[in-house]
């Protein structure tokens, strides 16, 4: 838990009592010894806002869709969050308290997300909520979580243009995913022309706006930009257009069931992605999606994400093994699932740095919190509540896994309000 070095430097304000300072030092030194059992501060001390914290437990909320159309995507996040909670509990809990959770079902229905948030915050008094997946559900939660001052840990890569004091964004915002991937295509593949294709809603449209701006800035050309309604199943026309325009790169952000239709029809139309003519670069197909599309239909495409299941580092090996042990050998882990796994760990780090479960105290400590046990490698929370993280390019293999072919050298800075890109 790489929080120890920042606890010392991160608290420069003099408002804290000396008692708590020494407590924090104690907690820090205990953490260095990788055991938090000994430090169990009193409940009155760590919880001044009537959250559901007792002398030996703390309650959090999990709020995802486990029924309805979004269940397909969100169940992985629920599994990852529960795994993280189990692991934290096994290693001694948070501030000496075992985590208990209340799980609610958002049912793929945005007003339900708002209602369940209200229930979690007002009735269950949860100390944190891990949840939401689509931007629409996050936007529904937002006014409620801000009104009652809760804290949401949101796992999905998303379009940016948001920064709430009551949300921590553990997925990438659009610029982190897009800029690095276009630079990569230009530098290593010599791409000059791009065809932007997406489903017709806010995330693909904003992403393509960012992509187009960046392509313009590099002096290269967008030869087509196209959107299809969610759930669209016939892509023959756009495939013909692509064949005619012969772009170097198809930049795709098609989501959901449309994905399956798109890749199957590309394959049927005689496009072999392994030829890279054109090269297909996507920001929306994780290992999860490939299960539905079929590895043989996407073999050779490139995806730009921060996490792939095949990442070769000890943290990830441990994580994948633990995930498979908990949920079965045939599980696949996508980018969002990994980001969801970070939520409880980052919350734990923030709580222990603040020495309190109070939302206001945690918020002050977010900036600079590090987590070096992340399966994706090292991450750090930016003061804008997003994560510094590396962006990777993976090439899809026939077995449905990605082979990592590129990784940014530096952590990408999260920039939810990119200048001139809006």
């Amino acid at each position, binding site marked *: 838990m790489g929080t120890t070095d920042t606890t010392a430097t991160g608290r420069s304000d003099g408002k804290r009592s000396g008692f708590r300072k020494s407590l924090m030092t104690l907690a820090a030194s205990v953490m260095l010894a990788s055991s938090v059992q000994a430090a169990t501060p009193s409940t009155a001390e760590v919880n001044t806002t009537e959250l559901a914290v007792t002398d030996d437990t703390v309650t959090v909320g999990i709020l995802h869709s486990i029924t309805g159309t979004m269940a397909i995507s969100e169940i992985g996040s629920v599994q990852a969050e529960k795994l993280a909670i189990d692991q934290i509990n096994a290693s001694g809990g948070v501030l000496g308290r075992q985590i208990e959770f209340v799980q609610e079902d958002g049912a793929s229905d945005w007003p339900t997300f708002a209602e369940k948030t209200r229930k979690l915050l007002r009735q269950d008094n949860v100390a944190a909520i891990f949840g939401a997946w689509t931007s629409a559900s996050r936007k529904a939660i937002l006014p409620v979580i801000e009104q009652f001052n809760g804290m949401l840990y949101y796992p999905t890569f998303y379009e940016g243009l948001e920064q709430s004091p009551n949300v921590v964004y553990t997925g990438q915002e659009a610029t982190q995913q897009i800029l690095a991937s276009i630079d990569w295509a230009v530098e290593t593949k010599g791409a000059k022309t791009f065809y932007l294709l997406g489903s017709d809603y806010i995330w693909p449209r904003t992403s393509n706006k960012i992509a187009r701006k960046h392509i313009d800035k590099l002096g290269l050309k967008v030869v087509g930009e196209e*959107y299809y309604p969610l759930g669209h199943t016939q892509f023959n026309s756009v*495939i013909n257009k692509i064949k*005619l325009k012969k772009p170097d790169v198809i930049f795709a952000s098609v989501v959901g069931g449309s994905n399956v239709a798109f890749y199957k029809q590309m394959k049927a139309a005689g496009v072999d992605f392994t030829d890279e003519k054109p090269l297909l670069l996507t920001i929306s197909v994780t290992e999860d999606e490939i299960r*539905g599309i*079929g590895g*043989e239909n996407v073999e050779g495409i490139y995806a730009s994400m921060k996490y792939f299941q095949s990442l070769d580092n000890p943290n990830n090996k441990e994580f994948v093994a633990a995930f498979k042990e908990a949920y079965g050998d045939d599980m696949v882990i996508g980018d969002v699932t990994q980001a969801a796994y970070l939520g409880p760990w980052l919350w734990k780090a923030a709580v222990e740095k603040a020495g309190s479960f109070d939302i206001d105290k945690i918020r002050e400590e977010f900036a600079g919190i590090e987590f070096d046990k992340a399966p994706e490698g090292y991450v750090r929370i930016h003061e804008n509540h997003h994560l510094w993280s590396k962006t990777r390019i993976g090439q899809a293999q026939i077995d449905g896994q990605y082979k990592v072919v590129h990784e940014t050298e530096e952590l990408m800075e999260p920039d939810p309000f990119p200048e001139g890109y809006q």
Partner: protein
Amino acid sequence: MFDGYTSSELMSIFAMQGFAGLSLFSVFVLMALGLAIIFGQMGVINMAHGEFMILGAYTTYLTSGFFQSYLPGLFGGYFFIAMVLAFFICAALGALVEWLMIRHLYHRPLDTLLATWGLSLIMQQAYRSIFGAREVGVDLPEWMMGAIPVTDMVDLPINGLFVMVIALSVAVGVYLLMYRSGYGKKVRAVVQNRPMAEAVGINSAGIDRATFALGCGIAGIAGAAFTMIGSTGPSSGQAYIVDTFLVVVFGGAQSLIGTIVSAFGISQAQSTMEFFLSGSMAKVLTLLVVIGILMIRPEGLMALKVRR
């Protein structure tokens, strides 16, 4: 609009777009035939049509799994068996649903609408519990993948051709059944005048059940065919249902020929406009044209002329 394309490229565009339109047409025909038969015969709008279709798709998925594990040598031909299975499984479930639910609700069109919608939700959740919320990938035999190159620009996708052949066979089959068989004669008699048909000794309840089963069975075949071009998940059927209703209503609810003509018109209009406009705009324009024509001809393109 045509700027920047050479004339040979334009020729290729029209050839490819024509083919794209034809594949869309076969998809529409496969979906709409089953719905049109049921609607025309009984006045029942089957909101669960898409879910019957997905049942056919899951049947295909299970069959392909079975062949991979037990009969890998025959994998190349599993698809035909899957289609037959899909037809009979969906038809059997259709007959059961008619017997349990629909027959109690005849002459109450709004109630059947609600009841079949409820059925569609139940079926979706059942798929979710049985097969999981994730879409499943259906493996295709090698010969169904890829394309036949005709010229440099024009490739004909094999699975598109295959869907077309299925659609054509089903349409011909339905035509023969409706217009060249004893059963078809009875169906048409019931459609035109139910009390008179009953008076001459036709078992109209039996005809209803058979027709509902037939419609659902055709949905099953459609589902099997769509595993090649689309996704197979608990709610994938929803993606097709709106277009299907559009085709049936536009064609004239009781006319099979009308259904086919309207499927052809809508698919060609849609795919041509998709090429020159964006996908969303093409859909908007298609809908506007359909609404416009329906205002002039509320009965649809080809209404059945009967005395009421």
